[in-house]
């Protein structure tokens, strides 16, 4: 998830989705200076990190932000603790 958010374009995609509610790939690409395949790729990463959900409407895929902010926060802190404990380990062993 940290990686998913570590890219400015992906964060912009998320912001667009938060503003619009839900949108297909094409609409997101139109609002951004990047190609449609690139947007598709970013959406896949975001979906894999649990930040975005995808539903099928007929032949179209509609993307939306994962509405449960609690789940997002929990997921983020899960990654946060991984990083924090690595730093803790280095600090504890360095001071031993």
């Amino acid at each position, binding site marked *: 998830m940290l990686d998913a958010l570590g890219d400015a374009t992906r964060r912009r995609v998320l912001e667009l989705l938060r503003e619009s509610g839900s949108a297909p790939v094409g609409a997101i690409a139109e609002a951004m200076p990047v190609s449609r395949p690139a947007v598709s790729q970013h959406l896949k990463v975001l979906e894999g990190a649990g930040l975005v959900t995808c539903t099928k409407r007929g032949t179209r895929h509609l993307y939306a932000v994962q509405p449960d*902010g609690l789940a997002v926060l929990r997921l983020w802190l899960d990654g*946060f*603790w991984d990083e924090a404990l690595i730093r803790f*380990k280095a600090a*504890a062993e360095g001071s031993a």
Partner: protein
Amino acid sequence: MSETMTVAPVVKSVHVRCGVANAFEVFTRGIGSWWPLDELALTPGEVKEVVWEEREGGEVYEISNSGERSHWATVLEWDPPAGFTIAWKVDPDAVAATEVEVRFTPEGDGTQVVLEHRHWDRLGERAAETRNGYDGGWEMVLGRYVDKVG
């Protein structure tokens, strides 16, 4: 009142090559040496010190360079060097506190540290009254990255 546990706790463990007492001390009193204070603090990049009142009911707080004091957590259980439990509001707008319990156990040539971050449901239960659920989660996660990279 029953407390449901539909949101699983975050459980992490790490083995450190030092004694239990040292590990406990670095985790608590020495938190400034490893916590990402430039990113996750109430005055990011401006934190002078993180203070632990080392007793049950004590407070954990940061002091900024300008002397401003900001609450991090309340100590629920203090049992050095075996462990501690704190009630942590992960962001100042959170409707309720989550709990973080950390245990330090001798193992092999060092210490096994096990961290459990739990009671996410407390946030969820209260937040269910509002339309968007715990929207603060999004604000915090995105806000941090906008500050950092944006």
